[in-house]
């Protein structure tokens, strides 16, 4: 039988990539018979020869962006065609359900039905002749009539009937709610998006996930929720250490996953202590966008700081206990390249990079010169010869948008060596350009644009 997935009607562009990632993780071959960004109902088919009930349950058990999956009993453009299709698909099943306890419900997308309307719609299904008791609480079987309308209040253009098979992993969202988390900061990623990111990264038992911009640990926490080993690093040691008993470690303790937390490191993405070995399964991160404070990496452009600095007492400055290493401005685009290259050199074949970045587009400004600037500032999606782009998901805010990019590490032998060499040469050119005195400001289009066009944006 086919299956109907009841999706949530938000974060639409994340929904199919999330389920595709979970299908791939479980080794399931899912065929999408119908899917639309405008609808919360999708229909899928599993290949013959497998237990489709188990497959359906497995597919959505971790998913955040759907509520439940149903065995599809029928579909139509109005009630007449729906009933005909139900009869055609399931008449042979009705006797099996004659005596079970059950419940029928109506799920009307973009619509509202009075209780009386609901009852009369449900009564039209009486021909299936279920004689068992109608039970509200934990019936043996739950049936749902789905009505899909394009706009609020219009006549449904599609109708479906489904029998509930399994509910999703969306419950975790509440558990990881930032409001209930011991340690958070202003840039902590919200629970839902962190968990979705962990799904797209295919975090799971026996795997290792790493976040090079770990902050308060939202992504590693989400990956550990799915059983993955995790660790991370951040340029700012204060965010890992937190304050008092509010630390990244304490968050893992709160969720009972500290076994899976390998630890937090203070490190700069451009000078990472991670070995150049292909050991990671997932890299997950939300790098700094360089908006509020400019982007920084270790180093200095000042000539005097290119050598060991001696203090008045003759001691070496960098060996003192409270030494703070200098940092210099850096361009956002170079940092994105660094993240891709970091991932390409450390992910196992098939391992995934999930990275958030601003889109910096989609703003309708009256002033044409401004509009031009905005258009120019929209980022290209960064590419790397050893990383295949798997999915591009966009989250829109009032005045700006950001994307979650998902890449897969191509198997070693399929990476084009010439492309790789060309790529490394190009990175060097950009690095030299920057060292030749271009300011981080010039190189960082998003930052400039943010200050020009988004002054009142609430992030």
């Amino acid at each position, binding site marked *: 039988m086919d299956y109907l997935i009841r999706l949530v009607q938000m974060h639409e562009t994340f929904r199919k990539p999330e389920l595709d990632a979970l299908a791939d993780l479980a080794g399931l071959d899912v065929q999408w018979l119908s899917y639309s960004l405008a609808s919360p109902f999708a229909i899928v088919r599993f290949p013959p020869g497998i237990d489709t009930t188990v497959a359906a349950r497995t597919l959505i058990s971790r998913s955040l962006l759907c509520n439940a999956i149903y065995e599809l009993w029928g579909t139509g453009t109005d009630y007449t065609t729906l009933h005909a299709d139900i009869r055609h698909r399931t008449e042979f099943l009705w006797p099996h359900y004659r005596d079970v306890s059950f419940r029928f419900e109506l799920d009307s997308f973009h619509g509202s039905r009075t209780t009386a309307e609901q009852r009369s719609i449900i009564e039209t299904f009486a021909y299936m002749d279920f004689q068992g008791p109608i039970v509200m609480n934990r019936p043996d079987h739950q049936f749902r009539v789905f009505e899909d309308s394009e706009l609020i209040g219009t006549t449904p253009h599609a109708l479906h009937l489904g029998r509930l098979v399994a509910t999703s992993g969306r419950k975790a969202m509440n558990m990881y709610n930032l409001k209930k988390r011991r340690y958070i900061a202003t840039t902590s990623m919200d629970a839902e998006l962190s968990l979705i990111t962990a799904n797209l990264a295919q975090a799971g038992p026996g795997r290792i996930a790493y976040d090079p911009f770990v902050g308060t640990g939202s992504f590693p926490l989400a990956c550990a929720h799915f059983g993955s080993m995790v660790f991370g690093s951040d340029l700012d040691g204060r965010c890992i250490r937190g304050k008092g008993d509010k630390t990244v470690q304490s968050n893992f303790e709160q969720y009972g996953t500290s076994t899976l937390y390998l*630890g937090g*490191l203070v490190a*700069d993405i451009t000078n990472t202590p991670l070995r150049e070995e292909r050991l990671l399964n997932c890299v997950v991160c939300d790098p700094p966008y360089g908006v509020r404070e400019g982007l920084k990496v270790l180093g200095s452009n000042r000539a005097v700081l290119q050598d060991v600095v001696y203090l008045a007492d003759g001691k070496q400055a960098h060996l003192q206990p409270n030494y703070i290493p200098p940092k210099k401005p850096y361009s956002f685009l170079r940092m994105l390249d660094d993240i891709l290259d970091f991932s390409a050199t450390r992910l196992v074949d098939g391992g995934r990079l999930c990275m958030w970045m601003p889109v910096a587009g989609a703003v309708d400004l009256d002033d044409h010169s401004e509009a031009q600037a905005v258009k120019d500032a929209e980022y290209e999606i960064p590419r790397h010869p050893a990383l295949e782009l798997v999915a591009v998901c966009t989250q829109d805010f009032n005045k700006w948008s950001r994307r979650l990019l998902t890449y897969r590490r191509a198997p070693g032998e399929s990476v084009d060596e010439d492309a790789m060499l060309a790529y490394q040469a190009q990175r060097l050119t950009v690095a030299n350009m920057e060292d030749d005195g271009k300011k981080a400001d010039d190189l960082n289009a998003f930052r400039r644009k943010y200050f020009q066009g988004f002054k009142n944006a609430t992030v």
Partner: protein
Amino acid sequence: MKLLTLNFLTCARKTCKSNAAAFPLHPKEAELEQVETDMNPLFIKNILPRLDWEAMKTLTTELGLPNLPAETPSDEELATDGEPSQTAKDLHTLLMETSIQSGKLVCGNCEHEYAVKEGIANFLLPSHMV
């Protein structure tokens, strides 16, 4: 920082990355802590092939911990009658339950020392080293 983490780390200096002497980092004045955690046999099994066993042996010797077997244990050695074997339990204790709380990690190539405080290692470098 769990001891397992050390198997993934080397010196942060770019000039040391390709030098064999930079891995593993050598603990110095290390204070260890042991916290009992649930054993995950699947993880031990999955992580073993990815471990640099020589580096693990060096680490245990330098920390004065019981010696590891000469070679990476095989899957068969990890279970006896379907239950985790003593070897698996020992590995769990070493990799997952033991952590470095404070001390230093020293690069065998450039001799730079990275401080570990409150279980967090600091790999930031002064500008003359980046």
